[in-house]
C-alpha cells in the first residue's frame, strides 16, 4: 500500500489515529505478525512439497523397499545415543585441549608457544580420518592399545581441540585490555586474572562457536565407524552392504544426522538469543 492511497483508504486510519493515538501501533504490530506468519507457512509448505515430492518420486520407482526400512530402521535409530555420546564426550575433551592450546598460543614463553603452535599446525595439516586410524591402528605398534570408543573419542577431541584452540584464543583476545588493567590494578596476579576475569568472559563469547563445532562434530563422528564404533553410520553402511540395500540405509542415516543437526541448531539459536539479552555484558 502506498502512502498516497485513496481517500477511502485513509479515512478510517485517520479517524482511528484521532480517536486513539496508540491504536495505530497495535495495528502495525498485527500487520507485521500476520506477514511473518504467512512467511513461515509458505516456508514450511515449500519444504514439505519438495521433500515429500522427492520421497514420493523415489518410492514410485519401485526400487526402494519400505518394508526393509521398517524392519531395519529401528536398529539404525537405536545407534543415535552412541553418536550423541561420542559427540558430547569428544567436544568436552576438545574443549579441554582447546583451552590448554589457547593458553599456550597466548604464552610469551617461546617453548610453550612453539608446542601449542605445533599442535595446531600438525592437526590442522593432516586429515581427520588419518588421525583416527592412526590412533587406533598405528599406536598399538608402540604398545598403546585403545578400545575403539576410547580411540575414536580421543582422535575427535584431539582434532577438534586444535580448531577450537583458535576459537578460544580469539575469545580471550576479544576481552578488552581495560579488564586486565582493572584486575592488575586490584593487585591480582596473572593466573588469577585469567581464571576469574578473562576466561569467564571469554567462555561466554565462544559458546556460540562451540555450538557450531558441536554440530559439525555430530557429522564428523560418522568417521569413527572406521575403527568399529557401532554408531549410526556404521550400522547404516554395514546393514546396507550386507543386504544390498545401501540406498535405504544411507537414506535413514542421512535423515537421522539431518534431524539431529536441525535440533541442535535450534537449541543453539535459543541459547544465543538468551545470551544476547543477558545483562552480563557492557
Amino acid at each position, binding site marked *: 500500500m502506498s502512502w498516497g492511497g485513496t481517500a477511502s483508504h485513509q479515512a478510517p486510519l485517520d479517524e482511528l489515529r484521532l480517536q486513539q493515538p496508540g491504536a495505530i501501533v497495535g495495528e502495525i504490530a498485527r500487520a507485521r505478525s500476520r506477514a511473518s506468519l504467512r512467511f513461515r507457512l509458505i516456508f514450511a509448505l515449500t519444504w514439505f512439497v519438495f521433500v515429500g515430492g522427492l520421497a514420493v518420486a523415489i518410492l514410485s520407482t519401485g526400487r526402494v523397499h519400505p518394508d526393509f526400512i521398517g524392519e531395519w530402521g529401528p536398529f539404525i535409530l537405536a545407534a543415535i545415543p552412541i553418536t550423541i555420546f561420542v559427540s558430547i564426550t569428544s567436544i568436552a575433551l576438545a574443549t579441554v585441549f582447546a583451552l590448554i592450546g589457547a593458553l599456550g598460543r597466548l604464552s610469551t614463553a617461546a617453548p610453550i608457544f612453539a608446542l601449542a603452535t605445533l599442535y595446531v599446525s600438525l592437526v590442522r595439516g593432516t586429515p581427520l580420518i588419518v588421525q583416527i586410524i592412526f590412533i587406533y591402528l598405528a599406536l598399538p605398534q608402540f604398545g598403546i592399545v585403545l578400545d575403539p570408543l576410547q580411540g575414536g573419542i580421543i582422535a575427535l577431541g584431539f582434532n577438534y581441540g586444535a580448531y577450537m584452540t583458535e576459537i578460544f584464543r580469539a575469545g580471550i583476545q576479544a576481552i578488552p585490555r581495560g579488564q586486565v588493567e*582493572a*584486575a592488575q*590494578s*586490584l593487585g*591480582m596476579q596473572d593466573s*588469577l586474572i585469567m581464571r576469574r576475569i578473562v576466561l569467564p568472559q571469554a567462555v561466554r563469547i565462544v559458546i556460540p562457536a562451540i555450538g557450531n563445532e558441536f554440530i559439525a562434530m555430530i557429522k564428523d563422528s560418522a568417521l569413527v565407524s572406521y575403527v568399529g564404533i557401532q554408531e549410526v553410520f556404521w550400522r547404516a553402511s554395514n546393514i546396507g552392504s550386507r543386504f544390498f540395500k545401501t540406498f535405504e540405509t544411507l537414506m535413514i542415516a542421512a535423515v537421522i544426522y539431518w534431524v539431529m543437526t536441525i535440533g541442535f541448531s535450534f537449541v543453539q539459536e535459543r541459547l544465543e538469543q538468551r545470551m544476547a539479552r543477558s*545483562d552480563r555484558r557492557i
Partner: protein
Amino acid sequence: MTASTAPLRDPFAKPGVLTPLGAEPIVRLLGIEKYFGSNHVLRGVTLEVYPAENVCIIGRSGSGKSTLLRCLNFLEEPTAGSVEVDNIHVAADPLHPRSRSHRELIRQIRLGAQMVFQEFNLFPHLKVIENVTEGPMRVKGIPKKEALELGDRYLARVGLSEKRDEYPGRLSGGQRQRVAIARALAMEPKVLLFDEPTSALDPTLVGEVLLVMEDLAHEGRTMIVVTHEMSFARDAADRVYFIDDGQFVEAGPPEQVIENPQDERTRQFLARLL
C-alpha cells in the same frame, strides 16, 4: 628506601591542610621518562604527594597526564625514573623482564595506589557487590562475610546500596563509575588514582561522580586526579599541576594555577577551556 637514593625532589610539594604534622610524602615519582617508540611522552616528571592531599593534574589531551598516572602503578613501564608508594620503591627497568620479586613489589604498589579508570572497567560478568568484593576476597584473602560487609559499606559510601545485586550492564555511566570508586575504596588503598574519571560520561552524569570525589577529598583521602574538570580542581585540590608536552610547566595552589596562571602555556590552555 627514601629520597637519599634519588637526587631529585619536587620543588612544588608541600603538605596539604589535612596532612598530619611531620608526615613524609607517600607518593614519590622521580624523573619519570616515557617513550612510546620514538615518541617522548614524559620528559622527566617529578611529583611528590603528601598524605591526605588531593593533587590534580591538568593539561590538554596528549600532554602525557594519563600516561603519568599509568606509569605510577606500572600499567605502563616507565623508560626511566623511579616510583615510590608508601615506602615501596621500584625503579624503571625497561630492558629486562621483571623478576618475580620485582613483580611482587609492583603488585604492592598497585595495592597501595588504586586506580579509577576513564572507562570504568567494571567486570561485566560479576554483580555490583561482587565487583567490589573481588579484590578484598581474592587478593587480600578476606573471608566472604567480612568482604561483603566491607563491600556494602563502600557501596553505601557512593550511594549505590540498592544496586548491589545488579549487573554493571544495567547501570548508568555515573553509577558505573561510582561502583568503580567503591571497588577501589574497598581495597583500602593509601592513594586513589583517578584517570579522567568523568571524561566518558554524559554531561548530566558528571555531577554525581564529582560529588563523591569531593567528599573523598574532604574526608582526607590521598588522591591524584587527572581531570578536565576545572571546577573540581578549583574547589577540591590542594595543588594543581599543569602538564604540557610531557613536563610540568606550572604547579601550585588552585587559586594560582587556575585563577591566576603565571605561565603562558597554562593561560592558553585555560582560555581555550573556559
